[in-house]
């Protein structure tokens, strides 16, 4: 145990009076409120926290933030289990349970680590070069088990997520000194300003020091009304300056969380301008075995000491090539960590008075790290002459300069430029709608960062041009130079185990584009997205191929900046709120009357009303039979309904439908087919004329949205001089369909006026009427082939009519029927159902409307497409009826028609099939190649290895003369 808790006052963020217990890999440990899991583990002397992706190398805590590649844990249990959580970001909570990922049986004795023994066989892309014989499938399962990190939960998430949209003039991302300065300046200049800070504190890199400037700016921000959101990480910038951010709301992992909490909030913020002040990431140097637990970023160790009161080790060696490392060394020394030496790659270090007493080894590098599960020492060599020295230490601090966090700038479409000597990529000017300030703009000198940020803030608030960034101040730092490749590994990407040798291999094999390098070696593809590895990888590639880093370039930055839960992206759109499901106005009534409900598209509606143990199919048979013999009641409320009004309504409907609507007399109704311009069927429906200028249009349930959209598009975009308005009224009207020979008798019993009687009202006509004080629109039409009334009435009254009718059902012997029986009835009549018998390739002639088209002289939408060669092909699939030759076997829907069993060229398929209660035999509709000319022919239907002989028939099967509709 080498890391430990320091004595107070170290630890600005922890509350030593508040102990917190937690469990790590089954061990009970203690930390303080204010700790992160990482700081608490370090305080407990836990170094080894995980295993790497490919080689299962032991790994420790590397950073103190979002860039963490190694310290990933699975947190929680059951419905709250969360995989791959960064220990460095997870606030410690009482009762938190965490486990290491990617190791078995334990993180200390991980069997996966045997791969380490074969590491030499597993260079970048090794899997592309082998596992080909006999095939990949043989090896794949084992490889899959080795890969992956955490374990996915098995239960549905218990918690809630919500979404919040906001608008602001200036949005500042990042609450460090630069962000604060920009926000305060913007607000002072009168702009509505919002500031997002990813962490729990303002102040960024300075948050844990008592910095008077941070304090002053923070309170100024509050006074000026800047909307400050802590715990809110901006993860992406999208079109037209939409910034999306995730706000963490709950005490993740706490044992006493309520059963359901609001866990995270998605912020969708539209900003007139965005100021990125996201800071910079410290970059590591490469040296052999630089991945051992105990090697970590210098700045992180600094933060652990000051903010959390944790010494990450007792004896530290600092590997450096930049000035920042000296500050860290001095500060850690003050905190009680022995600094064995600063090993600086540069000729002259940056030591000043503050660093007196620190041993500096210049122009040297680490050439070995000793210790496997924890650092025990290192070997340092002079770059010049190779002279070596072994140093005992338990901590190696790595400090290779900074990489500005240019993620948002790049996502917004900003360009980068490379500061040659330090291999630092900084924004090249501004991005559309976004300006960077502070460290993420490459401005590291504190005073310069603050004044530039303030100037940017006020300029943008006033709509002015932002001043250019005074880049610099990061201290001298040289781009890493490659060390001779020894036998040991220098890790570039810690999570994915990409080494400098892998980069060299990629160069050797000509995967030299930086994007090839990434994909071939997987560098930068881990959960940290290369925040501390991408720069090293591209610099190495440059060195191997003789290119400057600028020539190599960076890989593409993509959202999210840090991984975000799927839950927060979906927000409330889960469970019942995923997509609205529509219910009938009389939903409860149907439930009370034994409906078996199913989803049909967006609607939840009765499929049938089974009695007792009756199956759906049997119920439908009984219901359909009763409709034919007596009468039945169907709730057809979902049927689409439109009112089309205007002096040009008739002309318009003539253009929309195959079928002439202008010649309808008032009160008359007609069937119509709606086509798209490509000639294929979009919908069918019934159009009735309510008055000279006013039409009633019924669409199919599924076709309603398409029909309305098509009407509006044609009216507004093509026939722009037509005076027509289209008003959807589907929800206004319930539709109760009464069908069967005794339909009228039934309606008369509840008091429908005699003017609606079959004798007074023809088939295919519509009457407005009043019943029980409510307005009715009664359409005589029939999808069942029986005398039929579609009674449209105000939606809220549906239940009244149903109840009143149902009171007479028993005496009549009438039934309720559902969609399934309706299907049986319409198939007996040979009526098509759009979307079931037809698909998006069906033309009107295919379903028997060739004559209707010939008869109509006027143009209509889609007409021209019907005369293309392919539309006139006699081999097209055409609607026919089928009956099984044996009179018994139900023809399977989806069965293929072909003279011989598969494989064969199919001639068509069965589209609808039912046992006909009327005929007592199975019947079917089918689409058959050239079908209209093949009536009477014998065919074979093939289905899942069976085959049935059938005869082609001309529908309808029942009442071919169509007499029953008249009652």
């Amino acid at each position, binding site marked *: 145990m080498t890391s430990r808790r320091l004595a107070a006052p170290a630890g600005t963020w922890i509350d030593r009076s508040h102990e917190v217990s937690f469990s790590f890999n089954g061990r009970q440990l203690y930390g303080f409120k204010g700790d992160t899991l990482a700081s608490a583990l370090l305080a407990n002397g836990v170094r080894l926290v995980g295993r790497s992706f490919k080689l299962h190398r032991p790994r420790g805590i590397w950073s103190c933030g979002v860039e963490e590649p190694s310290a990933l844990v699975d947190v929680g249990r059951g419905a709250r289990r969360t995989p791959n959580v960064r220990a460095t970001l997870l606030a410690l909570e009482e009762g938190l349970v965490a486990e290491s990922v990617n190791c078995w049986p334990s993180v200390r004795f991980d069997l996966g680590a045997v791969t380490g023994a074969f590491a030499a066989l597993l260079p970048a892309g090794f899997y592309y070069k082998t596992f080909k014989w006999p095939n990949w499938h043989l090896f794949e399962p084992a490889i899959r088990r080795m890969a992956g990190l955490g374990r996915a939960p098995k239960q549905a998430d218990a918690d809630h997520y919500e979404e919040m949209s906001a608008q602001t003039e200036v949005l500042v991302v990042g609450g460090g000194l630069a962000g604060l300065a920009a926000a305060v300046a913007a607000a002072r200049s009168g702009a509505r300003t919002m500031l997002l800070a990813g962490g729990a504190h303002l102040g960024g890199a300075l948050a844990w020091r008592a910095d008077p400037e941070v304090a002053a700016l923070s309170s100024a921000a509050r006074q000026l009304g800047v909307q400050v959101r802590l715990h809110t990480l901006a993860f992406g910038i999208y*079109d037209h300056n939409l910034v999306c951010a995730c706000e963490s709301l709950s005490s993740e992992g706490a044992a006493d969380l309520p059963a359901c909490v609001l866990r995270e909030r998605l912020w969708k913020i539209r900003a007139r301008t965005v100021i990125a002040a996201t800071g910079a990431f410290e970059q590591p140097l490469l040296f052999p075995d630089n991945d051992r637990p105990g090697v970590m970023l210098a700045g992180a160790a600094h933060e652990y000491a000051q903010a959390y009161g944790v010494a990450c080790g007792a004896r530290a060696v600092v590997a450096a090539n930049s000035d920042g490392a000296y500050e860290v060394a001095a500060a850690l020394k003050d905190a009680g960590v022995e600094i064995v030496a600063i090993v600086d790659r540069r000729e002259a270090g940056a030591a000043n008075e503050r660093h007196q007493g620190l041993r500096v080894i210049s122009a040297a590098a680490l050439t070995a790290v000793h210790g496997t599960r924890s650092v025990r020492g290192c070997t340092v060599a002079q770059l010049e002459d190779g002279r070596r020295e072994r140093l005992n230490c338990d901590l190696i601090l790595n400090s290779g300069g900074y990489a500005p966090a240019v993620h948002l700038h790049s996502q917004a479409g900003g360009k980068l430029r490379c500061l040659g000597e330090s291999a630092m990529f900084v924004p090249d000017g501004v991005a559309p709608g976004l300006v960077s300030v502070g460290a993420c703009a490459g401005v590291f000198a504190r005073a310069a960062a603050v004044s530039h940020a303030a100037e940017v803030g006020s300029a943008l608030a006033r709509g002015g041009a932002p001043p250019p960034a005074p880049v610099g101040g990061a201290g001298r730092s040289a781009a890493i130079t490659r060390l001779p490749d020894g036998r040991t590994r220098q890790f570039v990407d810690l999570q994915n185990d990409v080494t400098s040798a892998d980069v060299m291999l990629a160069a050797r094999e000509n995967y030299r584009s930086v994007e090839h390098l990434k994909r071939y070696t997987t560098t930068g593809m881990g959960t940290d997205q290369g925040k501390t590895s991408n720069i090293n990888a591209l610099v190495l590639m440059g060195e191997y191929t003789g290119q400057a880093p600028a020539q190599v370039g960076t890989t593409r930055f993509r959202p999210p900046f840090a991984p975000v839960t799927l839950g927060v992206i979906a927000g409330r759109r889960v469970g019942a709120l995923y997509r609205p499901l529509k219910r009938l106005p009389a939903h409860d009534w149907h439930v009370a009357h034994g409906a078996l409900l199913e989803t049909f598209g967006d609607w939840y509606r009765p499929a049938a009303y089974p009695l007792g143990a009756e199956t759906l199919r049997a119920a439908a048979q009984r219901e359909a039979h009763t409709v034919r013999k007596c009468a039945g009641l169907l709730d057809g409320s979902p049927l689409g309904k439109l009112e089309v009004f205007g002096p040009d309504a008739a002309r318009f409907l003539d253009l929309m439908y195959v079928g002439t609507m202008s010649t309808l007399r008032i009160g008359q109704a007609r069937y119509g087919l709606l086509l798209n311009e490509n000639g294929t069927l979009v919908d069918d429906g019934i159009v009735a004329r309510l008055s000279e200028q006013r039409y009633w249009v019924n669409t199919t349930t599924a076709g309603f949205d398409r029909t309305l959209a098509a009407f509006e*598009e044609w009216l507004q*975009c093509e026939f722009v001089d037509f005076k027509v308005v289209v008003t959807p009224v589907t929800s206004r009207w319930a539709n109760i369909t009464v069908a069967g020979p005794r339909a009228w008798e039934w309606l008369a019993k509840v008091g429908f006026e005699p003017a609606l009687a079959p004798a007074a009202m023809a088939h295919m006509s519509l009457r407005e009427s009043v019943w029980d004080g409510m307005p009715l629109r009664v359409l005589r039409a029939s999808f069942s082939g029986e005398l039929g009334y579609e009674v449209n009435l105000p939606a809220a009254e549906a239940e009244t009519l149903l109840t009143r009718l149902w009171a007479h059902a028993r005496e009549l012997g009438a039934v309720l029927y559902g969609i399934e029986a309706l299907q049986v009835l319409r198939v007996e009549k040979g009526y098509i159902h759009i979307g079931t018998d037809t698909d998006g390739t069906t033309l009107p002639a295919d379903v028997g409307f060739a004559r209707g088209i010939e008869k109509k002289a006027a143009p209509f939408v889609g007409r021209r*497409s019907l005369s293309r060669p392919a539309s006139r092909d006699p081999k097209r699939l055409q609607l026919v009826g089928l009956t099984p030759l044996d009179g018994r076997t139900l023809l399977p829907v989806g069965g293929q028609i072909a003279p011989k069993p598969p494989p064969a060229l199919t001639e068509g398929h069965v589209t609808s099939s039912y046992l006909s209660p009327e005929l007592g035999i199975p019947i079917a509709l089918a689409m058959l190649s050239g079908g209209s000319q093949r009536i009477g022919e014998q065919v074979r239907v093939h289905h899942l290895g069976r085959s049935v002989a059938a005869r082609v028939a001309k529908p309808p099967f029942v009442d071919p003369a169509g007499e029953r509709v008249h009652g």
Partner: protein
Amino acid sequence: MMQLTCPWCGLRDENEFVCGGTTHITRPELAASDASWGAYLFFRDNPKGVHLERWRHVYGCGQWFNLARHTVTHEVSAVYAMTDPPPGSA
């Protein structure tokens, strides 16, 4: 997610609209040849650059209108009525 300006309702999020594709397409007469009918139905400029297209504000006022929008930057340079000529055509 883009923000588009409905001529009636003002700036709204992209997901209140549907895009109807290229605008200013002339519908041929019924007597058109198969080739010109096919060209009308299917063949498009599909420019990488400014595209004149039509959108409908389905979640708002339901109106169709035209946009000039860049297909790479998604920047909108003009919003105009269905019956207006293309911008710059005077």
